[in-house]
């Protein structure tokens, strides 16, 4: 893996966050006066003037833009309109719960999806293969907010086994993690299945079989290695859909995370908090894309030396 490869990925990471921050800045200024969007329409002029002063809106646009970027670099993301405190203080304690939720859901999806997809590929056309594929279509079409409500109906209101919401104990994790993990598990199963099928029909598998490599060893040493690159791609992609999922699922289960904070902040039009969460989401996705790219270079040395083109 060459140094220029690393530097290129790092540059891309920084550029993405810069672009997202700039887009939010432009959108905010498109509305004309951001303060007018925030305060109630009958707010007295003196309040409006105060807010304009506080956000530095009396400066020219380039000056505003530079001080906005400088603020982000220094960790100053503005003031929450609702609490009056810094937006970062509001968001920071929410990051942990969201991280736990998405991490466990990703783990669940990997543990269920990959073995299910491998099994389906090896038993192509059989009952269980159909079942796994049906499950994956189900996961794609099932709205996560409806799945969450069904789980609450069943486990909380009927069986009285699990708490409906909040994050008080390990039991609180069960339903949100299942809801978030299931759709992704379906996608993993489908992807693993097609990757394994493709590898099984490749010439090196035929050679391995002709040379008498036992079936289990063919799976662990030949297939598993070859499907790693597509799986890493998928894991990278699913970070985005997971972040999107937390927005809805955290609201359904009253989870004290960033996603639910985003929804309440949008309802309250608390723009500084919304802006910070957009930048955080972009940074998380850029980071996961960078990790994926670095993993590519490590898993498949051909990628690190020549430039990878296309992709997302």
């Amino acid at each position, binding site marked *: 893996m060459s140094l220029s490869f690393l530097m290129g990925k790092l540059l891309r990471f920084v550029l993405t966050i810069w672009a997202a921050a700039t887009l939010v800045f432009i959108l905010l200024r498109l*509305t004309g006066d951001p303060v007018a969007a925030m305060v109630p329409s009958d707010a007295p002029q003196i309040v409006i003037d105060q807010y304009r002063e506080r956000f530095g809106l009396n400066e020219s646009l380039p000056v505003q833009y530079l001080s906005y970027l400088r603020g982000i670099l220094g960790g100053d993301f503005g003031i929450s309109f609702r609490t009056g405190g810094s937006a970062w203080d509001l968001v920071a304690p929410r990051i942990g719960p969201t991280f736990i939720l998405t991490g466990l859901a990703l783990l669940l999806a990997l543990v269920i999806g990959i073995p299910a997809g491998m099994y389906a590929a090896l038993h192509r056309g059989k009952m269980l293969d159909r079942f796994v594929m049906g499950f994956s279509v189900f996961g794609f079409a099932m709205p996560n907010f409806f799945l969450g409500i069904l789980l609450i109906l069943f486990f909380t209101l009927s069986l009285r086994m699990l708490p409906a919401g909040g994050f008080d104990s390990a039991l609180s994790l069960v339903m949100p993690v299942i809801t978030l993990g299931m759709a992704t598990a379906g996608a993993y199963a489908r992807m693993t299945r097609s990757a394994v099928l493709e590898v099984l029909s490749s010439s090196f598998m035929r050679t391995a079989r002709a040379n008498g490599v036992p079936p289990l060893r063919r799976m662990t040493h030949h297939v598993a290695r070859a499907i790693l690159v597509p799986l890493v791609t998928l894991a990278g992609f699913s970070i985005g859909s997971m972040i999107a999922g937390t927005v809805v699922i955290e609201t359904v289960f009253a989870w004290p995370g960033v996603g639910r904070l985003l929804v309440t902040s949008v309802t309250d039009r608390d723009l500084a908090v919304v802006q910070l969460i957009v930048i955080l*989401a972009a940074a998380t996705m850029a980071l996961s894309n960078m990790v994926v790219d670095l993993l590519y270079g490590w898993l498949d040395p051909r990628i690190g030396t020549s430039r990878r083109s296309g992709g997302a």
Partner: protein
Amino acid sequence: MKRWSLGVVIPSAMLVAVVAFAVFGDFLTPHHYSASSLLARNLPPVFAGGSWEYPLGTDGLGRDLVARLVFGTRLSIGLALVGTIISAVLGTALGLISARSGKLVGGLILGAIDLQAAVPFIIIALAIVAIFGNSLSLFVVVLGLYGWESYARLVRGGALSAHTLPFVEAARTIGVSSIAIDRRHILPTVFNIVIVQATLNFPQTILLETGLSFLGLGIQPPLTSLGQLLGEGRNSLARAWWLAVIPGSLIFFTTLAISLLGDALRDRLDPTLRRS
């Protein structure tokens, strides 16, 4: 061939049923979807001991659930259709333009594609709603922006290779304008790509609309969509589970039908384009 046709017939029948419900549903009930009745609040559906006057019961304001489902389905499907068409046209146009323009315009479009893909769309949608406030016309714009970058990326790829085809080069040589080349020569070669992408985009647009409306940030009362109904029903889960489960099942049924039909259509249109 037999199994083949079954895979098309079943989801088609499901979809026809949903569309018929949305279009002709007014004949099922004499009530208006937003007419409330103080005397008919919280009535149970027939299967839980209710009367045939309100076959699926009423909500806390005495509004007929059948009428609300009909209107909600109509709005959810209609909005998703409009959103899908807007993003397909926008993405295709930008993809075609980026494939034939120079570094500046092409680079700008590529940058926009990357930027839109850099943040999950629901977060962009929520940011737009936070900044501009909530209105139906803005909501349609948000749905129309959903997924344009996928069309643009795919069409760009298809168009770039189509530009090297001999008949396209011939057309260019004899001085056919670039718009005419796009319309008469490039567009037909990338059209299947657009249709395939639309079958993927359509159910996802339904899920985006119902999701945002479920959160209370999409369709606003007195209008209603399936997602908004589910969001309202969620507040009375313990007392009247059907108020949430029936709209939710309808969303699932609709997206399932469209996804299955899309799968079958994809196999038929282009076997090499089978996506995981």
